[in-house]
């Protein structure tokens, strides 16, 4: 998710800067949702009530259910990921669809609603969409037929091809014409050639690869094991491992936020019987670890706001109703809270 926060932020920031510096371009009024923070609320299993909230950071006004508000119908899905690609915002529902909205006004501009099973994330590459999907659950809840679905238009449409990959693919990241896929169950990183739509290479890694992110000009992979977390970086010219670093952080859940300076904030949960949740902090480039940076219960998602240098920590409140967002500064001091949607799990800072 962090990749999806940091990169779009940079794109938005650069785009705004370029427009600001160009005297010849006519000024275009900002769309209502081009400023502020988009809050991804996953929704509750069986209820399909995932939605997006918008926080206007100038007025502190929180607008709820903006997909339904702008499109006159509920999102009706469990919102797994939210990816900004230029003016298109892709809303990936793990209940089997991708909704595509104009990132400026949230009006629907397309969708992928057929031939998906459990989509998890998405990247756009070579004017196509690539959607990671667990594939159908077998009767024993295994997913032996995971795939990357290919859609030939950035505005959605039908799935033209399914590229088989290792079980339970999660996050993806672009590297030129190639796409790296985090295969979370079998410990693999598959490299897909976006033009030939085939697997170009497979890299074996340890743990459960969860998320890619960029820092210091490199692509990193965050992988979790029961007793440690592992950070990999890659050579993108030949797709080999560049660095592998292990850190003794136990019970990591896979949710992570990364600052532009490479400081990682990772959710942990002790499990039975104490069920103590926490946030561990790790400075990737000097290996400084704070295992108890923040503690509590009910933590569900985490993200980093690079503008105000704050950490957004969410609480699902047991999925019994709306969740809560607590904003912490880099010293873990609580700054403010918001009541947001059900199962808040991610953010897009614009």
């Amino acid at each position: 998710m962090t990749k999806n926060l940091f990169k779009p932020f940079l794109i938005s920031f650069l785009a705004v800067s370029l427009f600001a510096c160009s005297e010849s371009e006519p000024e275009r009024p900002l769309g209502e949702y081009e400023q502020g923070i988009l809050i991804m609320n996953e929704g509750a299993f069986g209820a399909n009530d995932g939605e997006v909230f918008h926080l206007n950071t100038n007025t502190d006004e929180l607008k709820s259910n903006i997909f339904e508000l702008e499109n006159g119908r509920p999102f009706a899905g469990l919102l797994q990921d939210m990816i900004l690609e230029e003016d298109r915002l892709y809303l990936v529902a793990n209940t089997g669809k991708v909704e595509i909205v104009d990132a400026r006004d949230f009006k629907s501009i397309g969708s992928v609603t057929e031939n998906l099973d459990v989509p998890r994330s998405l990247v756009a590459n070579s004017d196509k969409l690539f959607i990671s999907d667990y594939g159908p659950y077998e009767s024993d809840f295994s997913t032996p037929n995971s795939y990357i679905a290919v859609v030939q238009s950035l505005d959605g449409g039908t799935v033209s091809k399914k590229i088989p990959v290792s079980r339970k693919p999660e996050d993806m990241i672009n590297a030129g014409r190639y796409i790296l896929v985090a295969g979370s169950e079998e410990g693999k990183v598959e490299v897909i050639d976006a033009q030939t739509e085939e697997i170009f290479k497979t890299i074996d890694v340890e743990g459960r690869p969860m998320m890619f992110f960029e820092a210091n000009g490199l692509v990193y992979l965050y992988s979790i094991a029961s007793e440690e977390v592992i950070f990999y970086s890659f050579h993108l010219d030949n797709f080999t491992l560049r660095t592998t670093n292990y850190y003794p952080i136990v019970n990591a859940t896979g949710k992570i936020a990364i600052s532009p300076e490479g400081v990682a904030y990772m959710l942990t949960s002790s499990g039975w019987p104490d069920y103590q949740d926490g946030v561990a902090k790790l400075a990737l480039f000097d290996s400084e670890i704070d295992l108890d940076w923040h503690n509590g219960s009910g933590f569900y998602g985490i993200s980093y706001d690079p503008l105000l240098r704050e950490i957004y920590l969410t609480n699902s409140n047991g999925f019994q109703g709306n969740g809560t967002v607590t904003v912490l500064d880099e010293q873990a001091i609580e700054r403010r809270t918001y009541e947001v949607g059900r199962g808040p799990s991610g953010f897009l800072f614009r």
Partner: protein
Amino acid sequence: MILFVWVLSLFGFQAEQQDTVRLQEIEVNAAVFETFGLGKKQLNWDKAALENYQSRSLSELLQEKSPLFIRQYGPGMLASPNFRGTSAGHTAVFWNGIPINSPSLGQSDLSIIPLAAPDRIDLIFGSDGALLGNEALGGSILLQSQANFQESPTASISQEVGSFGQSATAFQAGFSGEKLAFQTKIYSQKAENDYTFRDLSLPGTPEKTQTHAAFSQKGIQQDIAWRINPSQRLNTSFWYNEADRKIQPPMGSSTQDIQEDQSFRLSLAYLKFWNKSSLEIRSGWVRDDQVFNQSFIQTSSFFLSGDWEGEIGKEWKIRLGSRGTHIQGNLSTYSSTDQRLETYQFIRFSGLNNINLFLNLRQLVVDQKWQPLLPSLGMDWILSPSFSLKASVSKGLKVPTLNDRFWEPGGNPELLPEESWQGETGLRWNKGFFHSELTFFAMDVENWIIWIPKGAIWSPDNIRRVRNTGIEWAGGTEFAMGSTRLKIDLAYNYTQAINQSNSEESPTFWNRQLPYTPVHQAQGGVELIRDGYSFRLSSQYIGQRATTLDHSRIMDAYSLTQLHLNYKKLWLGPVQVPISLRIENLFNKSYQVLYLRPMPGRSIHLNLKIQL
């Protein structure tokens, strides 16, 4: 073999049938709750009232004819009762005196309780752990089936066909003599549920046909009663039911889940009567097998109880009893057993003028842990020929289910039982053709168990305290206009179920009405009966419901209307052929009981019965 016996017996009794008058059983054996469950709101449907519902489920009956709100995930899908704002697991369900709620889930799916099986259904509102035992917090549903002595032989077969691929076949036969009575019911029901709905999850909200909601169910129930001698009797019943369902996904999902349920239920009761007392030894066995996709769940329960009931003088009636229960659960993630022992005493005193008082007590021990004592106290007071007053105070208890305690991962063996205290008072009025009943209740439920995510694991905890208060009114009239009888019935319920502040939940959840608990519900019906024809128009109103505890989404209120047309005097020679037509959702309303779970529009059902 059973069918063969019936065929022989029907031919054997054919000549006698024409001039034999059906007799009701002379020996009256009032249900325990009628004698000792005073001071409480009750509703019941007897065999005649259930006749028009034989092709349908308990869930449909309760939606149409009771003030309960039924949380239904689609037609034929999971349906659970909401008594007085409590949860599905706060309703005790009995069949012939034995509890049939799943020990692993702690609730029953009312969609797979077909009304082809029971002869009588009683609803008892509110907490009454002393009288009814575990799980009777919000209310209780009692199903009865029994073969009666000295009745004419009967046989009937009915066939119903309806919209959306619905069909139902029911066969029933019974014969009895002085010593033996038999009753057999065989039924089969199915529905494709291929109705259309507007899919809100897709761009343009296109109209789609439901493709994964097919339902089928079949079963057999056999009741045998043996009057050993004038003072001894043996009643036994066996009920097998199986249901196969394609689980309807919510809009926006395309899951293809399949669920198969099989239930075996056996009850055996020995009764011994003396002049002023009786002894009842009852045993029962319930086994539920469920396959959800490939995940297999099997639970079985064995019950053995002994009760003595007697009169002391003219004023006191006492019942003493004990029941032992052995429960075995084999689930995909755990196996577990549970041993329960409970003892109870019920006392009724009728020594005051026009006042009946009762005091009931029950003590339950679960796996050698003593549970809180369950008392209840109440009265019925006949104030005048027109007015009577009822009042009661009682406690209810629900032992955490097997899943609550042992599910891997997340089960919590340290859970406390959920407990409730309820007070209730009501005024009944009958005058001439009119009747009215107004009930007020107040209930506190503590240690309410909620499953919440703890890290990556969901686990139950005793979190909530909920205060339920409400008013229930029901009234109506019945009178004749010449040869036409007119019946009008009306009901209104006001229910508040407010989550109290607690340390575990967000303050935004405090002092809020529980999700999917309508504050307002109403229903009404008009029925005209003349010369074998009957016409009934009925309607129900379900008020707004919040989908979550913070009321961030409120679902619209809806009302549904049904039309029933029956003609009972069609004879083909010696065979009576009642015919009926039913239209559900008469005004073709688009509605959802639960969010994003579309329900069917108008449907038409034609039923033909051949009754010997």
